[in-house]
């Protein structure tokens, strides 16, 4: 094992895949000469040249579409959005393009493309720069949606996404790029659609993904101090969702709390709650709880951010509530 930053793990994944497959290229704003707005693509222009590491104008609709077209015609683009907030400018090409072409063409065309970049809040940036669209993209048949939480997963899942023949939305976080973690030596791939039980427990299941895995894990630490044994599941991908792993855990713990950064209405937590009550109703000893962003835009002031974002305190409280623990 070696220790890498999240951004380095992503870079290794892209570098390895670009070395192995000539048809893979990277395109986006500031990815080449500036070495990436968040330095994910540092050094890639030097190694692969301007043909394969391509700076674009601020024209998300255009370069997302160019990516989709090139994927229909045999290439395997990695399209970087500086953040997924700006993917909204491009969303038509992602949803009406990438996600539909295979079906519309009766399977003649596939779209092996990765759209990647950071999602969610990154501190005090106010509401246009602090949004989560994991559930938006996950709603769309034809797409796969990957949201890694640590460097090792980031590398293995990004390599899988690049090799995947379907369009993949790959969502990172500015707040995680500097995170360090152990990454296996050599080649490895983590299959899309397989959740990771990161902590075994018997009293309650906590499900999360992406950077809010930190809240899930810290909550489990807090609960352990009070003798509550939480099982923690990292979904890793939110389309497809590994329902089986969640169900298996709930059958054991009989309680479920979901932590998610997005807004509550029609979110991944809504979806999982529906699924679990539908297929494992008899195993539940308490209502399913979820901790999400409050149902409002995320403003700039730190006091408001504190109120709105999911946190350990709210998660621990929710767990205690469904365990009927006093205080």
């Amino acid at each position, binding site marked *: 094992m070696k220790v890498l930053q999240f951004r380095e793990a992503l870079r290794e994944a892209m570098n390895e895949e670009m070395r192995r497959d000539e048809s893979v290229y990277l395109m986006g*704003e*500031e990815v080449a*000469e*500036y070495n990436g*707005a968040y330095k994910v693509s540092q050094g890639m222009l030097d190694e692969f040249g301007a043909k394969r590491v391509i*700076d674009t*104008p*601020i*024209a998300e*609709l*255009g370069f997302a579409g160019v990516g989709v077209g090139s994927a229909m015609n045999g290439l395997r683009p990695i399209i970087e959005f500086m953040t997924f*907030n*700006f993917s*909204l*400018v491009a969303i038509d090409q992602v949803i009406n393009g990438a996600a539909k072409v295979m079906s519309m063409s009766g399977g003649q065309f596939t779209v092996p493309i990765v759209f990647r970049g950071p999602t969610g809040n990154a*501190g*005090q*940036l*106010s*509401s*246009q*720069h602090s949004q989560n669209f994991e559930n938006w993209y996950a709603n769309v048949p034809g797409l796969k949606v990957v949201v890694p939480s640590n460097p090792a997963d980031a590398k293995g899942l990004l390599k899988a996404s690049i090799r995947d023949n379907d369009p993949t939305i790959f969502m990172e976080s500015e707040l995680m790029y500097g995170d360090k973690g152990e990454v296996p030596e050599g080649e490895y791939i983590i299959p899309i659609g397989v959740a990771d039980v990161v902590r075994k427990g018997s009293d309650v299941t906590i499900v999360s993904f992406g950077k809010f895995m930190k809240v899930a894990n810290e909550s489990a630490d807090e609960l352990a101090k009070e003798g509550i044994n939480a099982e923690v599941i990292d979904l890793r991908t939110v389309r497809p969702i590994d329902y089986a792993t969640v169900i298996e855990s709930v059958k054991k713990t009989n309680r479920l709390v979901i932590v998610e950064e997005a*807004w*509550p*209405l029609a979110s991944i937590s809504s979806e999982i709650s529906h699924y679990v009550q539908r297929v494992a109703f008899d195993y539940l000893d308490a209502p399913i*709880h*979820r901790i999400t962003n*409050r*149902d*409002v*835009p995320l*403003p*700039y*002031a*730190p*006091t*408001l951010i*504190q*109120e*709105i974002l999911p946190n350990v305190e709210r998660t621990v409280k929710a767990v205690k509530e469904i365990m009927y623990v006093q205080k």
Partner: protein
Amino acid sequence: MASVKEKKNTRAKSKSDFPKETYMEWYESMLLMRKFEEKAGQLYGQQKIKGFCHLYIGQEACVAGAVSALEKGDKYITAYRDHAHPMALGSDPKAIMAELYGKATGISKGKGGSMHMFDKENGFFGGHGIVGGQVPLGAGIAFAEQYNNTGKLCMTYMGDGAVRQGAFHEALNMAMTMKLPVVFCIENNGYAMGTSVARTSNVTGLDQLGASYEMPSESVDGMSVIDVHHAVDRAAKRARAGEGPTLLEFRTYRYKGHSMSDPAKYRTKEEVEQYKQRDPIEQIRQEILDQKIATEKDLAAIGDKIKEIVAEAVKFAEESEYPTAENAYTDVYADASYPFVEV
């Protein structure tokens, strides 16, 4: 057929066409922007200001020259590099500084921060964070002025990076066919983050972009407040006469990095120095002294006054309170009884 490109017509009028007060107002207004931004930069370094913070230093003439050419009641909208625009329109620097601090007394109640200043009372329709997103809004604001026959117009500012967005082109085309009273102002400071204008298109003279829509367009020395004033004056006359939009390219420069986190290694020291030689504030200062409109001593007194205004703004921001948690649920819907999802 409408003239596609008006002849560049700067300095057509003699300098003395402006009353003395105008020079003094320009000087004072631009110096306030400069000193305010220098302070904001320092405070960012001290982590009093968070998030992304984009300074206007170097670009002051693009706003000062417009405001002097326009009327009360005209509207303004811009992107996230937005501290100076409202200040030039009369917003209280205290409220702008408090916004940078995220305090409840801020111009957007601490909800917007650096990128989202708004001041309805002064006709400022905001700082917007999605590149190009404000351009159609500017056309829409102008649409409402036309609809209501007000004779007012909307100044729609954007960066050079924004003109590569579809939203810009769609808005220009519609504004032209509808003859909307809008002035599209490209603050061409040479770079969009680390990307020079030349690296984003074969068309680097951004005034040329109006040609596809037969929109009268001109390129203006954005370091000269006088040139900006004249160009905006011409555009405003056309807008008010019902002749429709104008595209102005202000050739300007930002002395600092894109935002506080950008070391700006993509450009040379010499290039920055070249522009500083043509500093908009220094130019007008020289004009004032040459024309003996005021003395060095008078100007120093203005400098002191501005220092005081900035210091007061900081004090106000420091002493103000953050918004309380309940405010997370206000200003989201006009409908005050809106039922948010709670569980």
